[in-house]
């Protein structure tokens, strides 16, 4: 008789425990889902920022504008033949 009560009690506690566990993990998973959503948004924002920076860099490094800056603002020019040193291997 005592053994039966004991078994029932243990099972009862186990059921309550697992029920609480389910509630807890459920809660946790919601929390993680929210976190995941936030991180995904952050990732998308970072990708967007990256693509914008790539574009900006490409525009700034455009060969045409670099060339005109070098020639006009910095007064650079292609070296004349006389100023080229050839190193024979």
């Amino acid at each position, binding site marked *: 008789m005592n053994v039966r009560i004991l078994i029932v009690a243990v099972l009862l506690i186990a059921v309550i425990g697992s029920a609480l566990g389910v509630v807890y993990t459920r809660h946790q998973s919601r929390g993680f889902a929210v976190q995941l959503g936030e991180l995904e948004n952050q990732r998308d924002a970072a990708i967007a920022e990256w693509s914008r920076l*790539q574009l900006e860099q490409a525009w700034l490094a455009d060969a045409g504008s670099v060339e005109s800056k070098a020639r006009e603002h910095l007064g650079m020019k292609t070296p004349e033949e006389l100023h080229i040193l*050839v190193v024979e291997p």
Partner: protein
Amino acid sequence: MTTETKSGAPITRLYAFLLAFLLCSVALIARAVNLQVMETEFLQGQGEARFMREVEIPTRRGNILDRSGEPLAVSTPVDSVWVHPGELLQSPEGIAPLAEVLNADADDIERRLTQRSGREFVWLRRRLHPDTAARIEALNLHGVYLQKEYRRFYPAGEVAAHTIGFTNIDDVGQEGLELAYNDWLQGKPGLKRVIRDRKGRTIEHSEILREAEHGHDLSLTIDRRLQYLAYRELKRTVLKHGARSGTAVLLDIASGEVLAMVNQPSFNPNQPSMDSDGLRNRVVTDVFEPGSVMKPFSVAAALEAGLVQPDSPIDTTPGTINVSGHTISDHHNYGPIDVTRVITKSSNVGATKLALSLEPEQLWDVYKRFGFGEVTGVGFPGESAGVLRNHRRWRRVEQATLSYGYGLSVTTLQLASATAALADEGRLRRPSLIQGAQNPAVSIMDPEIARQVALMMETVTGPEGTGKSARVTNYRVSGKTGTSRKASAAGYASRYIATFAGFAPSSNPRLVCVVAINDPSNGEYYGGLVAAPLFSTIMTGALRLLNIPPDNYAGLIAAAEEPLKPEDADGGVR
């Protein structure tokens, strides 16, 4: 007391009630079983439909990069504005400020919305400037929503417009490599199931039905610096000579990779107009009669047949020859010359005599092996194969004209790939635009013959050649000029195509460049005067940018040994 009276009525009533309750509970249990067992699926589905949503996971189109990873096409998210006509028309006072921000007519917007009032989704304006999007968001209007979309940007603009192509407003490739590699670039949108509350907020991700497959990046063999250089110089040449159009292509000989591929006229891929004339990538889509640039190939056929050697004599006196009633003539009477000088001087008579000494099949076979008359397989949409008629249908005069590049048509890319094969001892490679492509070389000719022809082509930039202006300081350059009259409805018109096909450095060929200028109208039209200088500027820049060592610095040494001029005394390197 009534309970103790032994009348039959209460007992009957008790049973009646018991029966009624029994029936009720049987009905309830039956219904419960029905709902729980028989109809669960339907009911659960209906219930979930109230809060479960299937949401598309958007993908980003892959970038297109040049050979060193510089971006040539980039997708970046921008906002598009859409409205729910019913919601917005309930509070029409919002339309005026909205129209103001969009710089549009308020009445016009209202009319459009009224026409579509039955719908729930109407695009108002797509791909807004970020500032405009921020202002619309600040208006906070009922029924006006912003939607993130990707917009494609082409930082290289018109310089690489033809090669890369462009996409339409729904991000689907329309032209060029954007079209050819659309599936690779596009990716597949994923699908996920989420739980949403009444206000449409996502409160739980329940499962991912299909992973999103993001678009892949595409690495090209194009070098952005060389592309820019070639484009700038081509544009300058086309303007200077008042030409109708022009093409230039630069190939790496060892790999068959296309380093630059440029066209004039061009367009801005960031705002493509549908004017089709400027959209074509003429390097691969347009064919022309190549003219004298074909002579190295016909001479190669003569050498291969074993009938002549590079120093075999040919008499071109009196500078004309009659073939089946047609007169073929040279610019001058070159008199008795050898095979090499046929190339140096570009003698039509010499080429004709060589070609007529061959069987038609021998000439046709060499042209065919170099890839004329067949697509190069570069994988570009709309590539032309050109025309090379079967030798069985050649007339005698055709066999003669084919030797100097009339009677067949080629694309600039075919010419480049064939010239590269000559430069690389007779090894033909399929040109490629995509990095990592497998281009095994196919040996199509005896290396010795290819070397002999390459040496002849070097004389073209020599002191007596027709292509002196193709020279590159400190490098040995080989090539061939071409000037072909354009065929029109009324026979050959006085319109020309000036071409130059060549490679450098001659001692160890690394780069092939072919340029073609269509219809130069400012007086000069010879390949040696119009196309050769363009070849020279492109090659000079490319050899320098790719750090290819010079193979002819006799001039440098001479210059360094000269006494320095006074103004150079401080900066001179000796």
